[in-house]
């Protein structure tokens, strides 16, 4: 975060990230429900859909893992808000002290200037470093999430392959696995947006 970007800009960026997180959570919930239906469908299909059943269970687990990952991201953005807030407070104090310095002269002014050189810079730099560290962690978590979503895509593609062996239920199973693919593609897009807001 640069001074030019501003703390307000940083808060708005966090909001955009949160909106994408909410979107992914909603989609993950949808996948969870779809996976439950897929499991019931596979059960009705019997032996022919055993492989599909296993993959549906994995997709349920994927959806749960994704929701947990989004919760981790959400907690991180909360940390970022706390850091940005601390920065706003420091900036506000510094503006007041700046005005104080402008109204003083002689030794008093020199004292304030020393204070500003030491504390102002130190506090500001510390807060900026905290924000930078949080942003790096956020980047890593987004990257980890992207890998998780890649796994989801593989599961959905595998489910499509298994669907072909579903006998009389094949068409229904193919439809379900196509729905999985499209829904996971939605998550890909949200993650891309999330990454863009984060950069």
């Amino acid at each position, binding site marked *: 975060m640069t001074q030019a970007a501003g703390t*307000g800009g940083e*808060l708005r960026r966090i909001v955009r990230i949160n909106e994408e997180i909410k979107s992914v959570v909603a989609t993950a919930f949808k996948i969870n429900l779809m996976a439950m239906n897929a499991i019931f469908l596979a059960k009705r299909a019997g032996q022919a859909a055993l492989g599909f059943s296993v993959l549906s269970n994995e997709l349920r687990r994927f959806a749960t893992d994704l929701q947990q990952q989004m919760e981790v991201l959400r907690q991180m*953005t*909360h940390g970022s808000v706390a850091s940005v807030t601390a920065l*706003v*407070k420091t900036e506000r104090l510094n503006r007041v002290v700046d005005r104080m310095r402008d109204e003083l002269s002689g030794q008093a002014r020199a004292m304030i200037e020393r204070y500003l050189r030491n504390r102002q810079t130190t506090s500001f730099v510390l807060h900026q470093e905290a924000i930078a560290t949080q942003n790096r962690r956020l980047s890593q978590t987004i990257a980890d999430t992207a890998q998780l979503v890649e796994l989801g895509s593989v599961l959905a593609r595998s489910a499509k392959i298994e669907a072909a062996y579903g006998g009389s239920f094949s068409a229904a199973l193919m439809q379900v696995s196509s729905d999985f693919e499209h829904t996971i593609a939605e998550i890909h897009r949200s993650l891309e947006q999330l990454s863009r807001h984060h950069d």
Partner: protein
Amino acid sequence: MKTAQVIYENGDHRWLAIVRDPDRPGYLVDTNEYLVSVGEDAILLDPGGSEIFPSVFSALCAEYDPRRISKIFASHQDPDIISSLSMWMEFNPDIKCYISWLWAGFVPHFGGTGDTFIPIPDPGTDIPVGRERLRAIPAHYLHSSGNFNLYDPKAKILFSGDIGAALLPPGDNGLFVENFDRHIAHAEAFHRRWMGSERAKRDWCARVADLDIDMLCPQHGAIYRGADVRRFIDWFAQLDIGAVKS
């Protein structure tokens, strides 16, 4: 972190209560913040102190896009109500703050400029939120000399600020009053000590008794619902207030 809970929903008209942070430092009084959203517009009621801004902001983000908040309502001037104003102004410099005219020259010390504030005259005013109109109802001297509640006639909810407040003991953190008699014991000392005018109290009780209220939402403690709303008004009407007891 606080949580944001839906306490009223009718289509795109919602009330969120932002409450109960288990990590709140013990030296800070617990507060409730509320968001009223109608369509694409929203107003934040008593947004909270600067120390809890991260918690309020994050809880809100989980349920609502804060970029749609166009207004803040401050029932009065206390720091636990409005000292986060500078943070909200950083986030959205165009936010307007409704507050009693009495405090419009004081609260800028917490943030904002001359353009930020919409002073509310003593008799109150209507505040538009989306297609609805909320009403700022006078509650002066209870406890602040320039003090307003906010009434939503469609939702039948009265945001009552410090009136109805209770300082709940640890572990007793329900969102709604479930047992009035047990709950009101946590409100009594606060109301006796803080509410300063018997006349103002009687006027307020008469004024709100005429309103159709399903929920009375205070800034501290639990929300009164249904019959407990009337119970509270009657209890408050007969309470001895405005004296320090040694």
